[in-house]
């Protein structure tokens, strides 16, 4: 895995892939795994990031998600967005198939 | 130096008559498995010892490139050995499969070949095909799981150290 959290990142979130179908998921404030990035809990600062990752690692999560990790997010006005191209693509879907992935679901809902 | 294990030999759980010794302890008359280093260093003395001797072949940790111990080094000592314990340090390290076949097919070793270390369920049957007859299993593995894993594939495509000829040969047997 190439682009993970960069050192010195201020804001971070935790992501993983769901065991049953590989879907990209994010750890929420109430320790659930959500399918969309806006639902992700955001940690501010390195210590908060570590605490957030620790919440993603209990053994019982192994039944539901794979390889949780931290990644950098950036503040964008009132919202957050993933910092790296990799995480932008994971949060949306393939840039060459806008009809597939989360970006397509979002379109259907709106 | 050696983890707890249960021994399955020729398909059945059994008491292990062997034990592993380090390189310093004086050897008793009990069947003992020693390191290749010790075997080479004490070969003459050991040849005079009137008890069963085994050797452990390490697959890993030999210098920077971790090539492991070479099965060819056992050649001068085969007449002294009743057992070779082949080390599989992780399931990824499959060097021991070649060591087993060389012992069986090129050195005609007919003593006990056992596998020790970290292996996956579907590797047991492959080990058996390479001539391994005894398995040091983690205490958590049941004999039922082991036996089932051994029978998951009923045919083989290629010959190895067992008596399966392989489909390419068997079709015209």
């Amino acid at each position, binding site marked *: 895995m190439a682009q993970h959290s960069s050192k010195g990142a201020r804001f971070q979130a935790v992501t993983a892939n769901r065991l049953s179908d*590989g879907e990209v998921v994010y750890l929420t404030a109430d320790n659930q795994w959500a399918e969309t990035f806006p639902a992700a809990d955001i940690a501010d600062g390195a210590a908060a990031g570590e605490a957030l990752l620790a919440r993603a690692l209990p053994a019982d999560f192994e039944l539901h998600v794979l390889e949780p990790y931290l990644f950098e997010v950036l503040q964008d006005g009132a919202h957050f967005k993933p910092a790296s191209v990799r995480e932008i693509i994971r949060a949306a879907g393939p840039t060459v198939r806008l009809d597939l992935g989360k970006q397509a679901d979002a379109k259907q809902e709106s | 130096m050696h983890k707890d294990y249960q021994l399955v030999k020729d398909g059945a759980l059994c008491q292990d008559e062997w034990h592993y010794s380090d390189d310093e302890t004086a050897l008793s008359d009990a069947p003992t498995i020693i390191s290749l280093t010790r075997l080479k260093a004490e070969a003459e003395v050991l040849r005079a010892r009137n008890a069963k001797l085994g050797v452990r072949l390490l697959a890993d940790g030999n210098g920077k490139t971790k090539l492991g111990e070479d099965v060819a080094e056992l050649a001068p000592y085969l007449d002294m050995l009743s057992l070779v314990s082949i080390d599989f340090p992780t399931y990824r390290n499959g*060097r021991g*499969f070649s060591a087993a076949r060389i012992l069986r097919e090129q050195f005609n070793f007919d003593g006990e070949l056992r596998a020790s270390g970290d292996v996956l369920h579907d590797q047991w049957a492959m080990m058996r095909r390479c001539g391994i007859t005894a398995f040091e299993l983690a205490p958590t593995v049941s004999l039922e799981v082991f036996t089932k894993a051994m029978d998951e594939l009923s*045919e083989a495509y290629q010959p*190895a150290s067992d008596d399966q000829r392989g489909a390419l040969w068997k079709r015209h047997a």
Partner: protein
Amino acid sequence: MYRYDEFDHQLVGERVTQFRGQVERRVSGELSEDAFKPLRLMNGVYLQLHAYMLRVAIPYGTLSSKQLRMQAHIARKYDRGYGHFTTRQNIQFNWPALDKIPDLLEELATVEMHAIQTSGNCIRNVTADQYAGAIDNEVEDPRIISEIIRQWSTFHPEFTYLPRKFKIAVTGHDNDRAAIKLHDIGIVIKQNELGDIGYEIHVGGGQGRTPFIAKKMADFVPKAQLLAYLEAVMRVYNRLGRRDNSYKARIKIMVHETGEEEMRRLIEAEFAKIDASQMLSVPQAEADRISAYFANPAFAALPATSAAMETAQKQDADFARWVRANIVPHKQDGYAIVNISLKPIGGVPGDATDVQMEAVADLAERYSFDEIRVTHEQNLVLPHVRLDDLKTVYDELQAHELATANLGLISDTIACPGLDYCNLANARSIPLAQEISERFADLDRQYDIGELKIKISGCINACGHHHVGHIGILGVDKKGTEFYQISLGGSADENASIGTITGRAFTEETIVDAIETVVTTYKDMRQDGERFIDTYRRVGLDPFKERLYA
């Protein structure tokens, strides 16, 4: 084509059952991910960015219509309506759910296909010349020995946990279309002065972060001894190949570090021991049985030319262009090899929809003796089409957007899935392939440029073969942003070479301009009849470098 017998059916069936059990144990929590991962990988199941990916083996790139229809069915039922043909002649599905994969594999087994050994540190699916059995001047159909190798290497008890993955490619022709010198073992079928068939063996080629052209290890291994020779290479590698560092674990590194001579000595010493047992000599009756599956189809006796085709060429300029670009002469009078480009302008290289796969399957059934081939350049082939039928086939392909007349041209790009799908990628590959093909969309301009192979990888693992592209592009990551490095002068054919990096990387915004600069430089310097690679080899890197970084 090879047909499974009871052995094959039974083994593949048992493997599906075994994997079903493994998936159930994983989902129930009995198996941890650490324990499950190697098992799923051995069955071709990867975890990518958005979902699992399943890689299905297409042995030596040959498919029947029924098998291709099954891929269409799988794409529809278990995936999102498309599949991706790879540089290893395989097909990948990008979205299957883990708990449905056992069902998928069960359906796949009904058409004699599987995903066994498409991943993991084992002997992977054997690849071969896509024109096997159709091209003139072939010593022998490479699929015969490929099938024997497939069987010998499947569930090999000694060689399933090698230091690293292991890829074998075979060609029976002097013009290498299987990139055999970029494989762990490359095999060229040869005939000696006595008329006997044997094999020239190349060992230690590969791409990745340290590319090497394979070294010729043996000039002529007699037919009956090939498996013994291969087993000797594998055993030397399994015993002495490095396991301390996965980047140094491929056999190419061992050949490089051990030296060609010593490597040859080790292999031959082991070969002598194995060969003496005669255990691996395939019985003649079995070799004949397998050969028979690859016998010529029932070709009709036809004239060498077709009036229908010539008339159509005069009447339809697009058809004429397609014939010129995508049709290769067949060994049999009156027939042609038809290349189906999976590189429409602006499309995703190697992708085909369920409907397109079914269309190709129908065409193969009606016009090509039920056979389809997959090429390592991510296209499809109908190997045996009558000249008289070419126009009909073309029209059908055209209706399904499968008639782009760009084979071997600048828009016929190899591209790995890249950061749009791949967990290992540093940068996207596909959008770049799309932009380049759109920039050079005009086919007349492409013909004027001539043969030019662009190959794009989204990371140093080089799945997009960038090292051997006439123009290679490597995506790199700098702090979460994509950059692209250019290399020039690579080639994957019988005159294989590794490209040279031009210099600092380009941004996503400037890379396509840079490619155009390379092409313009070539056009300015080329002499009569020179292809890009010829000009490059004559003038070297410097003129290109000067223009690129001016």
